[in-house]
């Protein structure tokens, strides 16, 4: 259920990024508040990840993974906010986004103990992990080629895809007809 709430936030995040790519940076920045939208939302999602880590995780490895996502989201959101405001000048701060997303992807892959077709949650953890690692590579390419519309569209679409994956998550459910007998009975 918490995954669905975060999926909503990530969906809005993806829509904001996609809209920015479509209209171009110049039009997007015409109203000052707009440039803080997606970094602010990313930072906010990071803050909200802490109560999830505290109240909704049931093992140490899940707690560590959720803590890593909270820190990564806050770091990349904070860095992008600083860059948008003009408080941060070094272009090295732009690395916060690919690094944060890469760390989040690795956290997904490391904390998933089961194989891809164990259950839907396991499949989605692997898929989200690799999607995030791919997205971090795209984010790195955006730093090298900031005007590339293809790269920025790919990045925004990967964020929207991530929200779809989060919406697909269930407690125990089969994936493409596969469900390990040790996963337990399917329930939402």
């Amino acid at each position, binding site marked *: 259920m918490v995954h669905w709430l975060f999926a909503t936030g990530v969906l809005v995040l993806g829509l904001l990024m996609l809209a920015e790519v479509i209209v171009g940076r110049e039009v*997007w920045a*015409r109203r000052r508040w707009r440039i803080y*939208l997606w970094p602010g939302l990313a930072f906010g999602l990071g803050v909200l990840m802490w109560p999830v880590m505290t109240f909704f995780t049931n093992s140490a490895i899940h707690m560590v993974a959720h803590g890593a996502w909270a820190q990564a989201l806050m770091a990349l959101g904070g860095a992008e906010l600083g860059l948008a405001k003009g408080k941060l000048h070094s272009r090295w701060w732009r690395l916060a986004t690919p690094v944060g997303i890469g760390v989040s992807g690795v956290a997904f892959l490391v904390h998933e103990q089961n194989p891809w077709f164990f259950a839907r949650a396991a499949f989605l953890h692997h898929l989200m992990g690799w999607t995030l690692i791919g997205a971090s590579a795209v984010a790195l390419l955006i730093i090298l080629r900031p005007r590339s519309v293809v790269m920025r569209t790919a990045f925004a679409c990967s964020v929207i895809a991530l929200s779809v994956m989060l919406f697909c998550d269930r407690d125990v459910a089969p994936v493409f007809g596969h469900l390990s007998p040790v996963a337990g009975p399917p329930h939402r």
Partner: protein
Amino acid sequence: MDSQVVTPVSVARPRIGMRLRIVSLLAPLTVAAGIGWALVQPYRLTLLHPRGQGFWWLAVEPPLLVCFAGIVFGVFVARPLIADLEGDSGTTE
């Protein structure tokens, strides 16, 4: 024959028009995705069968959340963005 009513058309206009159309479609498409999901999996809407459901199962309805995201984006982001783009297309005329 000379015409006095013909005005030069800027090359930027079709591009702005295309952007405007795509941005104005983002929110309705998102809401349509949520409605489509609700129609395909009506059992995801616990409001339709509320008996025995806890508070969170009633509060968090995934297809409605998708619609909500689309509406929030449409009202607070897409609308002012469209106004800016329309201003652009107005000035290029």
